[in-house]
């Protein structure tokens, strides 16, 4: 019983610490602006879009497929943020790696800015 508790605790700490977000940003581009109110203050004034498909299958996480981004009118990306959440890790565990929950946000380059 004690061992189970310790394992569970370790498991919980491991899954919690596995939550992270990574942000990629180009330095020589103008982000697309928007008149925003509320939301993440970091992105205040940015036109932030999110990837609709949140639960993804193995194909996508093994590099055999890709997220298709078709709504950047400039055809270019300024910021991509990938966030791995607690729920995502749990889902991955429960489905033995078959499914994953991902949160991807992105900001396009402003059209006509180049």
């Amino acid at each position, binding site marked *: 019983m004690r061992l189970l508790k310790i394992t569970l605790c370790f498991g919980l700490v491991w899954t919690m610490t596995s939550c992270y977000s990574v942000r990629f940003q180009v*330095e020589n581009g103008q982000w697309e602006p928007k008149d925003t109110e509320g939301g993440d203050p970091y992105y205040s004034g940015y036109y932030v879009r999110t990837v609709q498909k949140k639960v993804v299958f193995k194909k996508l996480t093994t590099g055999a497929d890709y997220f298709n981004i078709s709504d950047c009118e400039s055809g270019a990306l300024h910021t991509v943020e990938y966030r791995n959440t607690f729920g995502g890790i749990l889902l991955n565990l429960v489905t033995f790696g078959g499914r994953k929950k991902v949160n991807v946000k992105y900001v396009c380059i402003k059209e006509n800015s180049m």
Partner: protein
Amino acid sequence: MATTKIDNRTRWDTLHKNGPFPLKLFLTTKLEKNSSGLSGFEKYKDVAVEIQKLIQQAADSNEQFRAIGSKWSMSNIAHCKDRMHYNSYMNLKFPIFEGEMHQDSNYEHSNLFWFQCGNQIKEISLFLERRGKSLKTSGASNGQTIAGCISTGVHGSTIDVGSVQDYVVGLNLITGPNPEDNIYLERKSRPALRDTYVQNLNARVIRDDETFNAALVGLGSMGFIHGVVLEAENLFLLHRYVKKIDKAKALQLANTLDFSNYDPEIPGTDFRGVRPFHYKVFMNPYNTDEEKYAVEFIYKMKYYEDYKTDFGNPIPFQKEFVYLDLLYLFIKIAEKFPKSIPKLINLLKSSILPKEEKTTVGKLSEIFWDTGFQGKAFACSFGVDHTHSSKALELLAKLTREHPVPGIFAMRFIKKSEATMAFSKFPFTCMVEIDGIQWSDKEKIIGLKEYSKKLIGVLKDNDIPFTIHWGKNADWEFPGLVEHMYGNEVKKWKKIRNKLLTIPMQDVFSNAFLDSTKLSEPLAADEDLIV
């Protein structure tokens, strides 16, 4: 055809949440798509027609219409209660060619560019850099639109350059719904573009120094700025270094701007006796024991391609710099302290501004980089003659100790502007600024309006002539404030507004800010003759 999306709204707010303010309609205009095959010029003319249609609609509904940029102003200057127009997608850019220059122009055509109003400082810089050019100066950061910048008079601390509006050489204004309301303004004394070029854009040319200077810092109220022609220069590098120097020396340099005998002792350089491109002093008003002030020195250097090999890429370092701008510095200091505002202020008394002492070298756009904080903030900024800078700082800091608010001070310096209503009206204006975070009534400290009223009062009581940054927080209802600051220039500005805008159009392009400052009141007919 350009299209406008019209959203019903009940409120609107600035980037730093200085509102909210009530609003009816929020308008966003997008240019005709690139796939339409229209040329840049055709798209520009097409969207001008769309803007005129929107102005007509506002007038027909007896409503106000106000263009906004990136909503970085913290005063309510960008707000109007009825129809606010978001310009950011109007970002066409045109280089000027030799054959497009006015025959009497002294400008170098390769330095001139026509930018549509919604171009942001960062994108303008990137566009210019690809052509080996640079803006002459910017604010501490790069997110504002070009029209937003000139409408309030955005400045950095470039002692001998001036503010953003000071390198604008032409203005395309839409002052009403009729074809003749599409005008292009230049100084008669410094023409830039030939008439046929301007007429191709369906604009009517007016060359007049007084009109141009009044429209330059137009407070969003001289019509819709559709485009600006600005003068850039060849790319240059900036060498930036922040160090702590003796208080007395920092203030003496501020009061005199005489660097001829001064050696900043920056490692690996010899800037002895060199007048810096930019000089800025940071100060914590609560710690009176500190013997030194943090001072930012920036020197101009010749551009060369592989500067990054010698000095590294400045961008990744930007995130480590605490002296990015005043507000960011304050946030960096405050984040170590408790959330309670009175406790934070108390701790500031023993807080020493951090040491930085790192060299960065980069282009203007790399030194004045993306802003680091977008939360709730306030900023008050007073312009005084630089010879009064230490006195003004002392008075404002003392008052702040008596009525503490969560913020810290800086001083920046700007060359005089020719714009009639520019706050940089002294030969060299020192902007004494306090930036910080907002607080609530529950904190039991002085309210922002009351605080700002006291700041105005203390400068008046001590006979220090001053101005206030149009885009910053102030008690804008302070009786006779604008006349006190600008004297007869107010009448000149109103006279030109009368000349450019019909009375119904003056109402369309007014707002609560203009009412509080009494600038929306037209000149009496006899005054118009006297000015």
